[in-house]
Structures are given as structure tokens and as C-alpha cells.
């Protein structure tokens, strides 16, 4: 009979490290078709590498696990000065708890060994907290947290994702720190709705593109990953809390030096 290897775990964090050089994805000759695929590849690589040397006797008592690959440290180096770099973090939140996003951002600051994020893009799941339906209040709750971080100097500018004109306008009018960016899916880059276009021009909001699915890491996909790396039993009940993607760009040269993902998954052991 199959024995679960991490029966106590209810929180799992996986850091991909810096994947920009494809070093960690060498085995992949094909370019990932979607960011979801790319993310799954990164996570699988980390798990495969870490689980080779894991001590199951220690792990099986842990409630919270974290996996990182030592080789791909994404910490910003002094090859460039901090001002020359633009660090962008996209926070794809499925969990709308303010404390959770604070934790997420602190983690990425630590991962990159920096005090400031230049651009923070907030994307909120259509089904926040698993059972709820998206409402502007979810967005505003998280936005307020981010505004405080801007005040503290931890984030420079804030942006939002996939908002159409009415929602963007509502956020814009309500917010203390106005959104500078609305990042929309690249498939619509040639057919931006005129009202969104006009509003963004008026308020000097940049319309940028992304290639992410609305749910970048659905629960089933993550559980599949867990099945492959751990066991069927260990995969039960997990859902994504958040996915953070960070990049560091040398501004004036258009060269990206860092890219990585951090994912947090949670499960309620009582529900299994």
C-alpha cells in the first residue's frame, strides 16, 4: 500500500531560481508553448533535483516545505548597479489574504537580495480563496497592502492585470497609489477596446502585454506535479496560493538577466 511521504505538509513553497539562461532547462529542446508549461517545467526540475537527495525521515514530520535549487541563485549581483536594473514582479494571487501577499513579496525581495521592486503587477484569480468569485473588493484589499509597501519604499510602481475599462477606472478613482500599468493578454494586442485605449492614454497608464493564462497553475496541474514527484496520496488537496514571477532587466540595453518563479501551494489537511 502506498504510504504518503509528506502527510503533515499543508504549505509548500518552490523556488525555481534563475531560469533565464535555460541552464536549468537544458533537457528541453523545444521552447515552452505557454507560461503554464514553462512554470510546470521549472517546478518539475526543482523537485526532481531536490528529491534525489531528500531525507524522507526528516521531511515526513514537516508541516511546511520549501524547495530551492542551489545552482541557480537569482540574487542580483553587482555586475550592474541597482539603478541600471528594472525588477518587475508579477504576483498572481489566488489567495486574497493580506498577510499572504506580504509574505510573498518579502520572499521575493529576499530571493533577489534587493530592497526594492520597481514594478509590481497584481493579478487576482477568478476564484480567490478557492471558493469565492472575484470581486473588486478582493483586488482593493490586496491593493491597499501594496500601497503601504509603496509608502515604505519597497515597491516603486504598481500595476494591474487583465482589467477592462470599467474595472480599471473604478480602481484608478479609488486608489491612493494609482495603477501605472494594465497588463493584458498579448492575443488582444492588436484589438484593444477603444474605451480602454482612450482611458489609458488619458491617465497615462501603460498598456503592456503578457502571455499568461488567467489561472497560471490550476489546482489539477499542481496536483499532477505532486503525483509525479511524491505520490498520489501526497498530491491530494493542494491548490495554488500564489505564483510570483520576477524578472530583472538591464534597462538601457534590453537584456534580461534574471527570471524565475516562486510558487506557494496550500492544503487543508482536514479536508482530505
Amino acid at each position, binding site marked *: 500500500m502506498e504510504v504518503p511521504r509528506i502527510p503533515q505538509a499543508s504549505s509548500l513553497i518552490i523556488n525555481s531560481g534563475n531560469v533565464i539562461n535555460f541552464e536549468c532547462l537544458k533537457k528541453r529542446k523545444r521552447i515552452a508553448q505557454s507560461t503554464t508549461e514553462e512554470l510546470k517545467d521549472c517546478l518539475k526540475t526543482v523537485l526532481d533535483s531536490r528529491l534525489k537527495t531528500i531525507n524522507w525521515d526528516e521531511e515526513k514530520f514537516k508541516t511546511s516545505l520549501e524547495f530551492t535549487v542551489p545552482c541557480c541563485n537569482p540574487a542580483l549581483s553587482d555586475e550592474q548597479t541597482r539603478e541600471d536594473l528594472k525588477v518587475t514582479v508579477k504576483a498572481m494571487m489566488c489567495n486574497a489574504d493580506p498577510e499572504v501577499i506580504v509574505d510573498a513579496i518579502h520572499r521575493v525581495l529576499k530571493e533577489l537580495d534587493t530592497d526594492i521592486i520597481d514594478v509590481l503587477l497584481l493579478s487576482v484569480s477568478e476564484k480567490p480563496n478557492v471558493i469565492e468569485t472575484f470581486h473588486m473588493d478582493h483586488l482593493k484589499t490586496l491593493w491597499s497592502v501594496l500601497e503601504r509597501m509603496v509608502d515604505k519604499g519597497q515597491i516603486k510602481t504598481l500595476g494591474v492585470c487583465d482589467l477592462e475599462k470599467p474595472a480599471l477606472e473604478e480602481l484608478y478613482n479609488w486608489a491612493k497609489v494609482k495603477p501605472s500599468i494594465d497588463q493584458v493578454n498579448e492575443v488582444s494586442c492588436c484589438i484593444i477596446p477603444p474605451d480602454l485605449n482612450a482611458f489609458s492614454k488619458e491617465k497615462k497608464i501603460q498598456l503592456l502585454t503578457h502571455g499568461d493564462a488567467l489561472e497560471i497553475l490550476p489546482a489539477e496541474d499542481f496536483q499532477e506535479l505532486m503525483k509525479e514527484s511524491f505520490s498520489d496520496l501526497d498530491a491530494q488537496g493542494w491548490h495554488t496560493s500564489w505564483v510570483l514571477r520576477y524578472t530583472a532587466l538591464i534597462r538601457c*540595453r534590453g*537584456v534580461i538577466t534574471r*527570471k524565475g518563479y516562486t510558487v506557494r501551494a496550500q492544503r487543508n489537511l482536514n479536508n482530505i
Partner: protein
Amino acid sequence: MGLLSEGSPLDWEETKKYADHVRKHGVKQFINLYHKLKNRPCDVLKWGDEVEYMLVKIDSSQKQATLMLNAPELLPLLQREEIENPSENPTAWRPEYGNYMIEGTPGKPYGGLFAHFNVVEANMRLRREQLEKLLNRSSGETCLSITSFPRLGCPGFSIPRLEPDPSEASVTKSLFFPDGAIFGSHPRFKTLTRNIRSRRGEKVSINIPVFKDKNTQTPFVEKFPNDHDGEGASASKQDHIYMDAMGFGMGSSCLQVTFQACNIDEAKFLYDQLTPMCPILLALSASAPIYRGLLSDIDCRWYVISSSVDCRTKEERGEEPLKNDRFRIPKSRYDSVDSYLSPDNAKFNDTHLVMDEQLCQEMIDGGVDTSLARHVAHLFIRDPVSLFSEKIEQDDENDSDHFENIQSTNWQSMRFKPPPVNSDIGWRVEFRPMEVQLTDFENAAFVVFLVLLTRAILTFKLNFVIPISKVDANMQESHKRDAVRKGKFHFRKELHSKSSNPEDVTAEMDINTIINGGKTEAGTDFPGLIPLVNSYIATLDDADVDTTCTISQYFKLLSDRAAGRLKTTARWMRDFVDSHPSYRHDSVISEEVNYDLIKTIANITKGNMDGAQGLLHTTVSKSVDEIPESLQGTGGVSINGSM
């Protein structure tokens, strides 16, 4: 355009006397430059394109399309803005070889912001508009960006009509190309023409295989009535289109891109990485199948130009034993590069590099690294072919004219450009092989793709280096008719390995696989250059919707051309000629066919898509003149200075 010194040019005999002087001091100047500038701190990305236009008159009453020889009158008018408002001018203009040609560039270089890619086409459009404004539209005057004017060198190809002068009195001595078609306001071009011919000891000789159509004269032999001394008869080859002047090569247009690297090492790295791209982009941009009114069997201009400035003597070409000349030289001074610059890639330099060994040693002794010393020593096997009396004596610490003299008359597929002394311009790389396309949309597409490719290479740390001998083989392949669809090219199959055995890095691939991805002849998967660049763009969090939209349209064009879903300009021209009612399938492009072709091209250039079937889907993008305000403050640096 090259070095435009002012002053009085020397004739060949005088120039030859100073050849060693120029070389010796040129190398000293290079060593000084190198030490002054090798540790320049990191420079930002700045880049620019150069488009060459031809001035054309389309006379609908006569049904004639001719080249207008009035560039010298138009240039000062175009340059007024630059002179009166330097650093505010959005466009800049330079003379080119032909009196019918003008080169346009952006007034200021583009920068490293993603949004700059959306400005390129609009700037190209502006250049065209500025030039058109000076032309008389109602009498059929216009400017076109075509690589080769089909009836260049045919009787009556120009307006005013000029007769070629094959006697010694003329600069070209050509049976076809009149001196009056060479740019006259600056002595450089005529000086080069005469000196190249004098050095060579005979006229330049360009023989391009003629396209054998159903009714083409076979064997194909032409009689030249004005060939009084028989030089044409002996130099021309059967079944070839014979041309005998620099103008046939340098009088054709191209599309060039120059960009500034962040330091000397990155410049060498990019020079090396783009070297294998030269034949690929040459094949993809192919647009020159017609020469001197005849349909040829090649689709690109490269070897026409190569032969048109080939100053090598018989001895240097290996046709006679070496007696007066120092070296056997396998290539013309216009041809593809012969060595990589990064020390890491030295093992891929698998061809014999002809060098001035003494100058090479002098540079190495002077502290220049071996690969770079060898590269410069190879350039310096050439004599200067244009020298101005005022520039002979120089201060090697502060001048660089002698270095630039030899550097700018080595016309290679890539050029490694040291910074000028006392400027804030950095180490630059120039990409030179692309053929110019008919529309601004297409030219912008090629240029934007190339620069984005360099960003992807730097970001993902890719490696495309293959043995130089294979790049040379690819250059030959890229000329062939329909090389895009039928050619097989050596290309690197494994892009992420740093150092490897030169023996097994390549696989044969067609252009479609290289550009779009697919299986190589070796059975491996190749990701494709466009998917790689798209992967880079997807990773950028800076990509705004309009620029992304524009780029997606550019890439659709390039992707379709690579896959054969759209024709190259060369193929489109061949099909146009082939289906023209008065074409006799004898490879001859009559005045009438020429007129209709040029007229159709002029319409397509203006956005009229009739007749562009199979060539283009659209020429409409989201390109704009200025970066939108909201994107300006996102971390780009303000642009100053020229390239």
C-alpha cells in the same frame, strides 16, 4: 557611404606610393585607439538603420522608367534641417555611389526601450516623405527602395540620357555605365572607381549566370559594339551577364543596421554571433534577380558588388605567379568576413587567413589580443584606394583617418567599428548583408527582427558560431534562385553549449527550419529564430501593446517568407516578368516590362496592394513617430549623438 574627407584626391600612382605609409600609421592609430577605448565603461544600446533610395522617373507617356541623376541637387536641401538644427533633426541624409542614390538614416539613434521598435517604420516613412516632397509627383518622379534597378547600364536608363565612354578618358571605361551616373559632388566615388581599376590593371569584371528561360539565346553570347579594344569580349563569359563597372555593384542599394554594444567584449561577441546570420538574412531578403536588363540566375546582389570593386591584380587572384604583389588573396575586398573576433571562437576560424604578419605582430606587441590583431592585419593586406593629399600626415595619437581609410574600404558582411577618438560613441557592430525591400514595413520588419535577435542572444546566452568555412559555403548557397525555399544551410544545432568541437556543431537546415523551427537534416529539433525572439519578448515585462502588435505583424511577414507562404521580392519580380504579356521568355527585360515593373513597385511602395499578391499581406502596422508619453519614463535613456 564611408569616409568623406575633404580635399584633393591623389591619383593611383601617387596613392600607391603612400600605401605602406597609410598601413603603418593606420595600425599605429588602431593600437592607440584600442588602448584608449578598450576599457570604456558600459554603454547603452543605441542603434540605427540605413536605407538607400533610388530616384526614379516613371514617364507614363513614353512608358519609360529611368533613373534621375539629381542626387547632388537634392542632398543639400535634405541636409538643411541637420545643419540648422543639429541633434533635433529626425532624419539624416548622405550621398551614395550613384548620382541617382541617396541614403537616409534616423537623425538620432534608437535606444534600448522596447517601444523604440515601434518607431522605426514611422521614421522610414518620414524619410520617404521628405524625399518625395522634393520631387515632382505629377511628372512621375518618385523614390524607390529597390536593390538593383533592372535596366541599370542599358541604353537610356538615366535621365538625362548619358552615353558610356569606354575610352581611357573616362573614370569607369565601361561599355555600359557612364561616368555621369557616379555621384559627382564629392570626389570619393570617382576616385575609388578609377583607382580600383588602375590597381587591378584592367576593368572590373562581373559575370553573373544568365537565367535560361524557354527562349533564352543558347549559348548566351552578347556582342558589344563599343568594345573597341576587345577587353569586353575577352572578359565576358558565355552564358553570363557581363558587367564592367563599379556602378553595377556599388550602385545597388542595401539595408544596413549598426548597433552599439555595451563594451568591446560584447561587440566582439555580437559580431561573432551575427556572422552566421549573414547568409540566412541575405537569402530571406533576396530582391535582386535582374541586372543590365537581363534576368539572371541569382537572387541577390552580394557577388555582383564583390566583383564590382575587386581591385586584386592577376597575381593576387592566382592567375599569374606572385612577382610584384605580396599575397595571394582569395576574396575581393568586398565579401564575407574571414574570422571570428572572440578568442573563444578562434577554433572556428578554419580557413587560411591572409594577413600582414608584420603588422599583426606589431599589434600583438602593442598589447592587442591575437584574434583582433589578426582581424585587423587581414583588413590591412589591402592598399588604400582613395587618399587625399591633405590627410597624408597625421597625428597617430589623435587622428584615425588612416585606420578608417583601410577599414572603410574593406566592405565585409559585418564591420567591427571602434569608437571615434574624443566622442561618446562606443564599440559598434554593423550588419551589412541585407537586401533592401520595397516598402518601409518590410525594411522595418527585417531591422527590428535583427536587433531583437541580438537581445535574445544576449539574454538567453545563445551560441550560433559555426566554422567560417561553412559560413562561406552558406553565402554561396544564399545566392541561388529561390534559396529561401530550396537552399540547405549549415546552422548550429545546439544553441546552449558554450565550447564544443567545431566538427559536430552544425546540421543542415532550410531557411524555414532556421527561422520558424522544425527538424534538421540530422533529425534534431531546432527551435527557430522567431520562436526564440518571441520567447524573449514574452519574458520582457516592458512589452507595450502597440509595439507587440507591430512586431507580430513583422514576424508574420518574415515567417511567411521563410516558409514560402509569401514570395521573396526576387521571386515576386521573376513572376511579374514571367507573366508580363510582352515578355518573350528570353530573359530580356524590355523598356516596357521595366516600366510596368517599376510602376507596380511604386504603387506597392505607396500602399497600393494591387499587384502585391503573394509578396505582402499588408503594409499597415501600429508604428508611430514618437514613443508615447506613458512609456517614456520607464527607464530608457535620452538619446544623444549620432552613430
